């Protein structure tokens, strides 16, 4: 039994056009998987099905052997935009998931502070979101998703609005963080290089279907130099071709 199993999952907003069409996929604990596809291919919808934000029309999604029916605390979600509450300080934003379930104590604040240090924002806890750069806001969003110690992290193109260099820094930090905590990650992106750099396995989606899958053999920890290796280039080429053939 895999950690996360997607079985024949389908979803349609209207009956004639399935957005997610009979997807099968499984993720083992601690693995980092990427869902790669062009805009509108249904990858975000699939991610929301996994999160329990949407209910599949057919098929099922099982997390640790249990069918997902609604959002659960075992799963952290990072949205495309940082979605921070601008009227709350950075540290308050990070503890938000906990504060909805119990009164915040000094322990929780310490934990949030520790997470902020891990994402490189240890000194900015008292600031407010609009005083931060886009990259810093994304870091806060990641810290917020990690504070309830989720066993799985779902990420919906969290870095797509950042510049290339900031994005690479965040990718490295994310890998370090998830490597430490052995968190299972399902990461949605339209960026081929991003998928190749981050993932153990990559699923390519097109019009709601899985059209291609790729196991990434490059060793961990991944270092920035591999972006310029032949292995990396040929992987990107394969992915690129897979996405190109379906038009």
């Amino acid at each position, binding site marked *: 039994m895999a950690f996360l199993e997607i079985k024949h999952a389908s979803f349609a907003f209207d009956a004639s056009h399935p957005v997610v069409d009979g997807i099968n996929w499984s993720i083992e604990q601690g693995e980092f998987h990427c869902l790669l596809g062009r805009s509108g291919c249904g990858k975000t919808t699939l991610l929301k099905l996994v999160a329990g934000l949407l209910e599949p029309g057919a098929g099922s999604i099982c997390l640790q052997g249990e069918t997902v029916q609604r959002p659960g605390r075992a*799963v952290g979600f990072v949205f495309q935009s940082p979605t921070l509450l601008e009227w709350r300080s950075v540290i308050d934003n990070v503890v938000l998931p906990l504060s909805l*379930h119990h009164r915040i104590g000094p322990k929780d604040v310490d934990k949030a502070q520790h997470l902020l240090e891990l994402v490189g924002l240890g000194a900015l806890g008292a600031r407010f979101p*609009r005083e931060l750069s886009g990259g810093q806001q994304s870091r806060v969003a990641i810290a917020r998703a990690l504070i309830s110690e989720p066993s799985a992290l779902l990420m919906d193109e969290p870095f797509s609005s950042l510049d290339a260099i900031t994005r690479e820094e965040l990718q490295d930090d994310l890998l370090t963080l998830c490597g430490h905590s052995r968190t299972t990650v399902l990461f949605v992106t339209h960026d081929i290089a991003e998928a190749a750099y981050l993932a153990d396995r990559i699923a390519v989606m097109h019009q709601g279907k899985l059209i291609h899958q790729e196991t990434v053999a490059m060793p961990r920890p991944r270092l920035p130099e591999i972006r310029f290796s032949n292995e990396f280039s040929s992987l990107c080429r394969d992915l690129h071709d897979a996405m190109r053939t379906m038009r």
Partner: protein
Amino acid sequence: MKGALWSILLFIGLVAGWELFCRTTGVTELIVPAPSVVLHTLWQGLSTGFLWPHIGVTTVEVLAGLGAGCIIGFAAGIVLAEAPGLQRVLYPYILASQVIPKLALGPLFVIWFGPGLLPTIVITALICFFPLLENTFTGLRHVDPNKQELFRMLGASRMQTLLRLKIPNSAPLILAGVRVAVVLAFIGAVVGEFIAANQGLGAMIIGAQGMMDTSLMFAVFVVITVQGTLFYQLAVSAERWLLRHHSTGTTQ
């Protein structure tokens, strides 16, 4: 700062022009009293203590009407935004209650509530109610769907989503409604007193009219203007402070 300076210069110029107009044309005080005469009347009213009880009455009416109107409007906005079914049922009635000129209800309120402060307070509250209702309703209905999804993801209850996301997120719009209500409250209170009171600044204007005391009328205008501006500025300052971290705030 430069704008403020010009504003003050303009004020001095206008008052000087007005004074000059009165002195050169010899227009009677019954029609247009000179600023110096108005100032004298105002000073007398304030120093003899004649004006103060009326200022007090109007202030009480404004505060009570504004408070009640804002609270009821805010609460109604929340209820309508959270219960769309109820909104379809009640909205036509709420709209009807706003379209009817509330001042026309003054005489009725005197019959219902007697001649005291209450009729004017009710009129003021009715006027302040609507901007709060509209702005609260609109604000709560237009919360960023991503943030709502975040709260769903975090397993927040409906109450938590309302109190910790929707209301703070709509604060800029709600407080803009309060700002509008402050201005309307003075109109409501003063005009309400025309019809339904024998005390207060509005009643004084009617009284002054009866005695053909135009300069007293002008003195009361000055008091109302100063008081209204003061209240408005207070509302703006409170708003600025409350929204100091919102991205739409004006600080920093």
